[in-house]
């Protein structure tokens, strides 16, 4: 039951809950302060910022911001004119959550799935073995798929982008090699592959034979995770997610904050 006095909020809340991309533009300064335009990529916008011209220009800008998940203030003339500052609009993007695909249904998968959920990922667990890939074993997963990783990637690979992650935890060449080569064919931002140094060396040889070039190897995080000295599945999950964050922010060294200087919160 939604409140009839808040029609825009109701649509916004429903879209956020359904994990559909949506953005809210609010006039924070100028005529009609508080006026709003709710924008989604597929449906007509709701509300108005005051003038049709302003609505049209802001809608266009909002769709661009939403695609990259950015939020911030923009300035316009009263009718949407560029290089004027009569109206300040705060654009808030609610992008769909990033995806994490985890290949291999092992204990490390359950721990990684839990940490990934805390970080806001939509988690898919995939393993070709039906007795291991079950919803009971991975209740935190949004989706559990019984299939070969490369087949899942053929289905969903096009939807993967820079914010998404593929984690290959099988450490079995028969699954790993096709999973990795297919992941490299996507735009996914992070590809991490689990295994000991020995497994890694052996797998690298197989990947080379499968045609992976230097640029491909440069994209692979193998062995997966930061050098935190993690032992348990839970600690390993933290080291993997920490690596994903560091890759996104461009920080390379997993050094303690105590031993570094510079801003703790990077802009």
């Amino acid at each position: 039951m939604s409140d009839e006095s808040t029609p825009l909020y109701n649509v916004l809340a429903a879209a956020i809950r359904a994990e559909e991309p949506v953005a809210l533009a609010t006039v924070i300064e100028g005529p009609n302060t508080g006026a709003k335009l709710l924008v989604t990529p597929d449906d007509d916008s709701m509300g108005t910022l005051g003038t049709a011209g302003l609505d049209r220009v802001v809608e266009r800008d909002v769709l661009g911001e939403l695609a990259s998940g950015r939020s911030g203030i923009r300035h316009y003339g009263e009718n949407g004119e560029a290089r004027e500052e009569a109206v300040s609009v705060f654009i808030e993007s609610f992008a769909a959550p990033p995806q994490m695909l985890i290949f291999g249904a092992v204990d490390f998968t359950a721990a990684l799935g839990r940490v990934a959920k805390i970080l806001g990922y939509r988690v898919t667990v995939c393993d070709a073995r039906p007795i291991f890939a079950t919803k009971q074993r991975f209740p935190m997963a949004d989706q559990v798929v019984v299939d070969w990783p490369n087949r899942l990637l053929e289905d969903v690979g096009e939807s993967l982008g820079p914010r998404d992650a593929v984690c290959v935890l099988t450490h079995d060449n028969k699954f790993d090699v096709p999973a990795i080569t297919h992941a490299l064919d996507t735009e996914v931002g992070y590809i991490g592959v689990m295994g000991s140094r020995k497994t890694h060396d052996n797998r690298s040889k197989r990947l080379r034979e499968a045609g992976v070039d230097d640029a491909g190897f440069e994209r692979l995080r193998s062995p997966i995770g930061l050098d935190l000295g993690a032992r348990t599945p839970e600690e390993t999950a933290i080291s993997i997610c920490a690596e994903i964050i560091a890759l996104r922010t461009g920080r390379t060294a997993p050094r303690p904050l105590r031993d570094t200087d510079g801003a703790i919160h990077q802009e």
Partner: protein
Amino acid sequence: MRELLNDLDRWQKKGKKIAVARVIDLEGSGPRLPGAAMAVNEDGEVVGSVSGGCVEGAVVVEALEVIETGERRTVTFGYSDDEAFAVGLTCGGTIHLFLEPLDW
């Protein structure tokens, strides 16, 4: 906003008046990015956060005024060291918040 939805719905069902504060801009160092939000109801209940806990108390006071007057406002919090007891961010940044009633 995402993490506020369940509480906002619950408050709405009880007919509570609500104000929402959102981070709209950040200069220098600051813990929360634009979009971080907190909400306050007429009874002074609070959900969410807009900083690392530095300015939330002051935001509640502002939010209760917004509920009372129904008027939207922009509020800025800066570095707190120059005035020992003023509310501000100890990390040296400045945050700008937009507060408004949930009436849209």
